[in-house]
């Protein structure tokens, strides 16, 4: 109205200034948050062949192969210069430490660098990475986590891709049959085992001694009796620790995995095979599940275990008589409070009264190295895997995290003798390795464990009988598979 030309110009000036200001702010913010990183470059050999051998201790016996020679041969890569492996690994502090040492050693040996990516839920982050196109070259997945990606074609079939796969398996001391049973899908193997632990009963020696219970129970009825004597809610002492992280009848999908499956395995070692690829042999509605449910629901119905969720499983406070855990619990407990591991010890999973105590079985919380199908550096990833499963690193993993390599002769292996002498409870776990049966939970493993958990909880709360719970769980699982 009053001075149109002036207003026009002013408007454009404002607009321009505004845009420039925004861009400037954006640029400044961007630079402020991403200062140029000074990378410590190690001179990369552009020549093509690098060979290293990692020596191991020299005691040689006829039964246990102790020398493992890791040879990394890198032929000319298509992109000359640095290769960078994107390594999806566990985020726990002790695992970060182990992986830190491991990747540094590998980089020193071969010049291959790493981008360390930390995962807490592994499979979720793995699928997320694939969905969004994030590069991953090597990662660590649990036995129950490999089915889904294998089914989707997202993992490399290791035995097909690398001709020396079975040689490395045998040289590492692993049982090929165990590897096939635990890590294969539709006839191909998708992971290389490197750590795990048999799940055993962890019990509080002091609590049992205080009540005059000398030896840990071998039978289910003995275990119920022991829990009955120890439980004292007024003092906050529980017979049964309940699942990790939040105790009680929480809803984490893997809670029943640790608490229920070992007892189910001890009842019938063949029944832990939930599925095969055709989803046959689904036997949740079976006597083995029903009887195990009947047994374990007593823990909650009789008040030996807390029904309401707790801040932490009482096992981690020394206030529970029995729990289920792998060898790692002793390492972790020791880090939090040196008094804790001293109070506890590990023993076999008790068996039903009608079984022989030696027939007990359990599952091993195995984890393996996998290579995604989208990786651009499969060969280098495989060299890394071979490097990592060497005995030197297995021992380091034991020292740092309490995780065991699932080699058949672990307990007798002289390489680890000094470690077992210093940490006798780990030898108990090592000796339990022959009692581990592989798990085959199928493609929908996580979903189904969650579904099973629902009915497990209802049974423990007394809302359903074990028979009803097993039947409903089977129905829900069948619905989830077909739906």
């Amino acid at each position: 109205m009053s001075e149109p030309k002036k207003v026009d110009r002013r408007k454009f000036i404002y607009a321009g200034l505004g845009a420039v200001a925004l861009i400037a702010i954006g640029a400044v913010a961007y630079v402020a948050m991403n200062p140029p990183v000074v990378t410590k470059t190690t001179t990369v050999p552009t020549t093509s062949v690098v060979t290293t051998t990692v020596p191991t201790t020299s005691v040689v016996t006829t039964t246990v192969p102790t020398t493992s020679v890791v040879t990394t041969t890198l032929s000319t890569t298509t992109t000359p210069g640095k290769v960078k492996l994107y390594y999806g690994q566990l985020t726990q502090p002790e695992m970060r430490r182990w992986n830190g040492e491991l990747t540094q050693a590998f980089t020193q040996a071969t010049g291959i660098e790493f981008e360390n990516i930390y995962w807490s839920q592994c499979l979720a982050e793995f699928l997320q990475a694939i969905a969004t196109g994030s590069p991953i070259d090597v990662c660590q997945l649990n036995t129950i986590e490999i089915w889904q990606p294998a089914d989707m074609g997202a993992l490399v079939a290791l035995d097909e891709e690398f001709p020396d796969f079975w040689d490395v398996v045998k040289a590492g001391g692993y049982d090929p049959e165990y590897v096939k049973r635990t890590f294969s899908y539709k006839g191909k193997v998708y992971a290389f085992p490197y750590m795990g632990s048999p799940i055993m009963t962890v019990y509080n020696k002091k609590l049992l001694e205080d009540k005059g219970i000398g030896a840990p129970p071998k039978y289910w009825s003995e275990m119920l009796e022991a829990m009955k004597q120890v439980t004292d809610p007024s003092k906050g002492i529980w017979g049964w620790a309940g699942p990790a992280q939040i105790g009680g009848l929480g809803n984490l999908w893997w809670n029943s995995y640790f608490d229920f499956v070992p007892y189910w395995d001890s009842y019938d070692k063949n029944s832990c095979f939930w599925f095969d690829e055709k989803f046959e042999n689904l036997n949740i509605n079976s006597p083995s599940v029903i009887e195990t449910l009947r047994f374990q629901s007593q823990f909650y119905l009789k008040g030996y275990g807390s029904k309401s969720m707790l801040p932490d499983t009482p096992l981690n406070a020394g206030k529970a008589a029995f729990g289920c855990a792998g060898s790692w619990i002793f390492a972790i407990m020791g880090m939090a409070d040196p008094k804790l591991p001293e109070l506890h010890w590990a023993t076999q999973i008790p068996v039903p009264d009608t079984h022989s105590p030696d027939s007990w079985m359990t599952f091993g919380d195995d984890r393996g190295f996998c290579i995604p199908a989208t990786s651009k550096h499969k060969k280098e990833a495989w060299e890394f895997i071979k490097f990592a499963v060497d005995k030197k690193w297995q021992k380091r993993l034991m020292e740092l995290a309490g995780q065991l390599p699932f080699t058949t002769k672990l307990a007798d292996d002289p390489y680890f003798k000094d470690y077992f002498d210093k940490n006798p409870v780990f030898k108990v776990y090592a000796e339990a390795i022959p009692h581990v049966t592989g798990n085959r939970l199928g493609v929908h493993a996580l979903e189904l464990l969650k579904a099973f958990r629902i009915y497990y909880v209802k049974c423990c709360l007394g809302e359903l009988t074990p028979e009803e719970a097993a039947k409903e769980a089977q129905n829900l699982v069948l619905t989830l598979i077909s739906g």
Partner: protein
Amino acid sequence: MKFRVLFLQTLLVIFVLVYIYPILLSIGGAFKWRSELFEPTLNPFPINFTLHNFVSLFEKVNVLNVLKNSMIIAIVAAFSNIFLCPLTAYPLAKSNFKGKRFFQLLVIFSMVQPFIAISIPLLGIVVMAGLQDTLFAATFPFLIYPMIVYFFMQSLTYIPDDLIDSARLDGAGELTILYRILLPIIKATVGGSFLLTFIWIWNFYLWQLMVLRTTENMTYPVAVGMLSTSYFIYYGEVFALTSLYIVPLLIIFLIMQKQIVSTMVLSGIKG
């Protein structure tokens, strides 16, 4: 009268103490051994005092780096919001133009999104732009909070139009009006928005866990995530980390609260 003051004062103190009792528990827990941590006692303070949680924390987490990263993200986001949200809210509250309704609905629409709906595609965009694992990517979705835009829309609507018209007659440009005249009037909204944005992003772990995956760029929720694993939560270290950051955060809050709980008389609105 004095009795009333005293009564309300003590009531305030009691209320605040009861209210932050759970926080006191975590601060006290930082100095406890794990076996003592969840003892059924009312006393938040340790019987066996120990500093081992802090030692262990420093071994596991680069505490200063984490603080720096979290502060950068939170402060950049807060400043971006108090700069850009009024910019967006002003035309929506105070002018009539074609499509105003449409944009208002856009603001409301973006306000109601559950984060889980947008998380994976957003991560896809970030990865495509090559910005994964940068602090910029961690801040980016929060540079403009629709909720804060709505907040400013609210506050601006109730400033009388005559004020703006007279400023226009005086020849002020729209930007000047907004930043020089209007914002000082709604200083409390600005201060409140800064605080709210800061707090919101400080703890928003879902996105930061998705985007930030290496050690150098670790922020506070990611560090806490590292200490909470499936089987075992390192409560001692988590409590220690929390306790360490209470001091810098308290300082920031006290600085910002002056903007909100001001005791000065505001004379912007002419009677």
